[in-house]
């Protein structure tokens, strides 16, 4: 699937992108991984990942547990299944948000300013994790100075309008 990076110079443009995506696209069409979409602190990791799927598809949380567990195994975080947000590192929170989006099997998954969400030492690990995402287009909205880290990993740099057109075609 396609991998795009959208370079952003100023934050207001970035916020406009996020607002457009959250206002106009369904979470099932475009999963969003962003600081503005926090995990629910009172729920476990398992519940956080399963909640959108459970709610929209009317499947009980317990029935989704094996599916969530297998997904967590593929990302190596199955030991966190009953943890709460307060016990997780920023990198682990990011992974849980990715799985929450992936469980909905969206066409696209948008990462909004990932550099702001995790510690600098985890950033390369995060970029490597993106390789594991299959059957979903990955779009990263990131500050210009970090864009190169994605382009060397075969991400295509495009403008937001261009991506918007591509998504509309889908």
């Amino acid at each position, binding site marked *: 699937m396609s991998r795009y990076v959208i370079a952003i110079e100023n934050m207001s443009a970035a916020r406009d992108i996020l607002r457009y995506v*959250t206002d106009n696209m*369904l979470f099932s069409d475009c999963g969003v991984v962003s600081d503005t*979409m*926090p995990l629910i602190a009172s729920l476990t990791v398992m519940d956080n990942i399963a909640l*959108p799927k459970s*709610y929209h598809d009317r499947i009980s*949380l317990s029935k989704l547990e094996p599916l969530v567990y297998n997904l967590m195994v593929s990302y190596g975080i199955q030991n966190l299944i009953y943890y709460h947000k307060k016990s997780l590192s920023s990198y682990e929170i990011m992974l849980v948000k990715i799985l929450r989006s992936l469980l909905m099997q969206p066409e696209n998954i948008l990462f909004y300013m990932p550099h702001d969400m995790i510690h600098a030492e985890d950033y390369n690990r995060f970029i490597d994790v993106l390789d594991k995402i299959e059957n979903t287009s990955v779009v990263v909205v990131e500050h210009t100075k970090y864009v190169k880290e994605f382009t060397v990993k075969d991400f295509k740099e495009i403008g937001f309008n261009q991506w918007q057109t591509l998504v509309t075609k889908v």
Partner: protein
Amino acid sequence: MLLHFNRFIGALGRSIINISDVLIGVTKFSFNILRAGFLSRNLFNPVVLTLITRQIYYTGVELFVTMTITSILLGLAIVGGLSKLLIIFGATASIGSALTIVLVRTAAPFIVGLLLIFRTSTGMFVDVAMMNLNKELTALENMGIDPYKVIFFPRVIASVLSMFILSSYFIVISIIGGFMLLSFQLNTTLLVIGQQVISSLNIQDILSFLIKVLTIGFMITAIPIYTALDEKRSELDILKSLNKAMIRVFYYFVAVLVIVEFML
């Protein structure tokens, strides 16, 4: 003098407007919760049922031990004391109706209501205020999940059910507790006392109990949540608003107890 009077009238007017705003706001909010819960297929959504069950565990089941101890002790005090008084005045035949008035109409909604206000209302307020502050509610909306359905409705319904179950439990355990004391002084059995209480219950007592328990159960959760949703600034402001929420809950609690008692 006139200036003071004008200021007083102004302050009074502002207070009336504020109180009206809160009453209208809470009423609208309550209707929205009920609409989200009942006027959709939402009630049978498995995730909502799971969340209601969990809330019942938090609101009701975790209070069971406290409730049992409180009920036995208060049963000893209220039922035992009241019965002792009736024995002194030779009115043992009225034990049933006296217990009904004291326990069913007043003590159960009052004590269980207070217990839930101390524990559940404060917990709900902080929980929802933090969710609001941390933008968790916005996140849910962005994922197409209605917070009224998965956050507010399960909490309110669990509170109503817990209030009803714990109040009924309180009555039963209080009678048993009181009987433990009474059995030493009066030649009677628990069955007889129970029968006296049940036979002296009339429709007004049952209605009074149900209206108090259901409305208090609903509002001791709805008011803190409504107040918490106003709070988006900082954790310090949440603490200030907690006072506001608890005072609102307490006024409402007293108003329901008094108004229903006068009406029925």
